[in-house]
């Protein structure tokens, strides 16, 4: 698992690669939280290279979304592979976190 960060003006794009499960979810949380600076206005998490996410990983996404929500920073996800999309649909998290097909769509909405 690895998190790569790009800045598009005040929008932060975090690209997550590999697998996130209970063995590395704390690392995932540290990397994602650490990447989000004070001046960020929106966060787009690109899951295009994420092969698998377990419920421990979903908890990190929820935690980050809640923390950002308190700061009025928007968060969205994009480019989910079919298995990852299915995890979000079964857990119902697609109903509480905005999901876009592509990073471009997510950036357009965030900008």
């Amino acid at each position, binding site marked *: 698992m690895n998190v790569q960060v790009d800045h598009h003006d005040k929008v932060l794009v975090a690209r997550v690669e590999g697998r996130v499960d*209970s063995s590395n979810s704390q690392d995932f949380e540290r990397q994602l939280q650490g990447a989000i600076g004070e001046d960020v206005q929106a966060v787009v998490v690109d899951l295009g290279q994420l092969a698998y996410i377990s*419920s421990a990983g979903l*908890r990190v996404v929820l935690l980050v979304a809640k923390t950002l929500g308190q700061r009025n920073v928007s968060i969205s996800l994009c480019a989910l592979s079919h298995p990852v999309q299915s995890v979000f649909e*079964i857990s119902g998290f697609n109903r509480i976190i905005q999901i876009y097909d592509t990073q471009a769509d997510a950036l357009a909405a965030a900008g």
Partner: protein
Amino acid sequence: MAVQVGDRDNPDYKILVVDDEPDLERLVRQRMRRHIRRGKYGFEFAGNGVEALQVLTEKKDIDIVLSDINMPKMDGLTLLQQIPEVNSDLRSVIVSAYGDMENIRTAMNRGAFDFVTKPIDFTDLEVTIERTLRHLDEWRAALASRDKLVAIQNELAVATKIQQSILPDKFPHVDGCEVYGCMHAARNVGGDFFDVINLAAGRIGLAVADVSDKGVPAALFMMSSRTLLKGAAVGVEDPGAVLREVNDLLNETNDAAMFVTVFYGVYDPSTRVLTFSNGGHNPPLVVHPDGSSEELELTGGLALGAIPGFEYGQASVRLSPGDLVVFFTDGVTEAINVANEEFGLESLQGLFGDGRTPTAREAAEMILQAVQDFAGEAPQFDDLTCMTLRVADE
């Protein structure tokens, strides 16, 4: 007035019974006489909350308080609030009128571990006491380990024990169906639980759940989820309304953004209808006698604890004689073998062929065995839980 009974001076566990009904003392002594004689349980009695607090102040070795709700001077709900002031190393079990949702809910929120309903069924009561004591033992072990600041591995082992202590080990005997459940806890984690709840009119509540994280905090979250679910299940009929209530209660105190996926269904053996609501859990599989199977529909739910105020939908399915419903957690389908391949839903479906459906127990054990055989030496990071409902043959 507190009365000492039993002729054994040092029982293994001490139970304080609080009730203003004088006949209860005689009844408890009579029905529990074998346990009292063998020195397993010792009983104390108090007539109301004030007397109970007196007993708890004088005797620091009470393990369980079994309390009625409506009593003069101080009621059971007020007593629950006061108990931690005098003794924080015990568990309370509330005796309530059947379906008295409001009081059960308040009691659970005030820290009751479990409840039994009136009129008291002593077999039920014994099972509840046994489970509460088992839990208390694990809990005390957990506290002792934490005090010693043992390694994290040990803490996780303790969480697993807490988890095992809340699982049902007896399954209801009901005409027209059987139920079985088992779990294989991953070596050092623990987030799954299941429950089988006897409901009014012969119906059965069936729950399978998976907490998002591992370790002691997750085990505590699992405990409250299980307690709140049981409390809601006996008071509310619709599975969707049950999940909505548990979700709202879990959201009241949840800073760590933990959540629990829960599938909850109510099965009525007289109509063979299973009504269910899915709170973000992987859907159960319905297996027919010809070996074909399909997943139950999702009901537009969301994992519990994520956000408050969510409305949970529900659906129902009419089962046929010989049908088998397999409730499981994603540890089953997402188990990985040494080649890094997933067990998957198709392998699960492939376990069932044309012919007689296995019994509830055979099916659950067969599934867990198949997953373990598949995984082989590959380390597993998730619990394996499987609960089965088998409709009787025609």
